């Protein structure tokens, strides 16, 4: 286990103990709630990770580098942002998926674009958002999020 993982573990355990001491009842209730949410995702998590194995086996790193590498980041980041907007997978499993692609040579620019639009832009949830807040709000928020996702990706590409 690396140092950062240990730090996260320590923080998590400490906060959890605090919450048990503060209120056992609230903590147990929160545990039930989180368990139902995360339990439902477990199958999906394992499935995505097994998919990563297939991708790493059958898609050669050279191809990943060529398509998602640093050569044509403009097109790849826009495409990644579009894919992120229409996909509906938990961010949860998106991190190992994207991490595995970056490990074999994908540029971080499309990676960031995908991660950001995945959660912030929702084509699938758009009708719901429209119903609750109106068409203009939903359009504005989703379009701005899409644009900013690409800006964030580009700035990060320049920094890292």
């Amino acid at each position, binding site marked *: 286990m690396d140092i950062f993982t240990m730090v996260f573990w320590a923080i998590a355990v400490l906060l959890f103990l605090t919450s048990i001491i503060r209120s056992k009842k609230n903590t147990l209730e*929160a545990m039930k709630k989180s368990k139902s949410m995360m339990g439902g995702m477990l199958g999906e998590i394992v499935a995505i990770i097994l998919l990563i194995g*297939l991708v790493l086996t059958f898609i050669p790193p050279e191809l990943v580098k060529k398509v998602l590498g640093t050569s044509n980041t403009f097109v790849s980041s826009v495409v990644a942002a579009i894919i992120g907007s229409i996909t509906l997978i938990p961010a949860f499993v998106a991190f*190992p998926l994207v991490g595995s692609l970056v490990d074999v040579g994908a540029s971080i620019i499309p990676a960031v674009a995908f991660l*950001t639009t995945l959660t912030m832009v929702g084509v699938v949830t758009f009708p719901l958002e429209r119903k609750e807040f109106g068409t203009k709000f939903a359009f504005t928020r989703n379009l701005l999020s899409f644009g900013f996702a690409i800006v964030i990706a580009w700035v990060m590409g320049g920094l890292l």
Partner: protein
Amino acid sequence: MMCSKLKKNKLFIMIGLLYIGLLLVNPGKALEAFNNSIYYLKEMFIILPVIFLLTVAIEALIPKSVIIKSFGKNSGLKGNFLAFLLGSLSAGPIYAAFPIGKTLLSKGASISNIVIILSSWAVIKVPMLANEAKFLGVDFMLIRWLLTVVAILLMAYITAFILKKKELQAHNDNDENTNSLMIKQEYCIGCGLCVRMLPEMYKMKEGKAVVAVTSMEEESVEEIHKTVQKCPVGAIQYTSKIEQN
């Protein structure tokens, strides 16, 4: 029941079949693919409990209702800060934020703060930061977090500049004076928590929870309110005639 289980694990079954097929055609490659997965699987299970514990602790230590209460008509920086806090400390997918955003809107929250809540709810989950740091590195996580906060603030102000509050849909469901209990199907994630809490009121149908009864006893009002609060995505809608009298 069987059918809904199948539907829920569609992806898992698909990938499983892919592996079985591959095992028959080329066992060497199947094994290689499985071995490639093991590293990520191990890493995932190291970080999963952290995410779980953090989510639980945040939920138990900082009840959402407290933040919502102190929200009010707060505008300015303090309001923005509370909006960020509410969004990034909450669990659940973005559409779980819609009902909460709507409630706050009717309480007088500004458009920019609604944008901040929805966006930060979507991208900057505190427990998820641990996950991101694990698979993409701490630098990556920190820089993306910082840039995202700045971007959300800009988006909030741009949206408030473009939109007037009047233009936001403020429609309410019209059957308010009836005693009605319903589960918004488009929000339900089928976790089954409400069914376990109140099996006489709710049941599972095709992987989603539905209301199982047509008439309600007076004494179940409190129990129902509990399930409304506990639903992780806020999908249960309940208006009680009894309570209003």
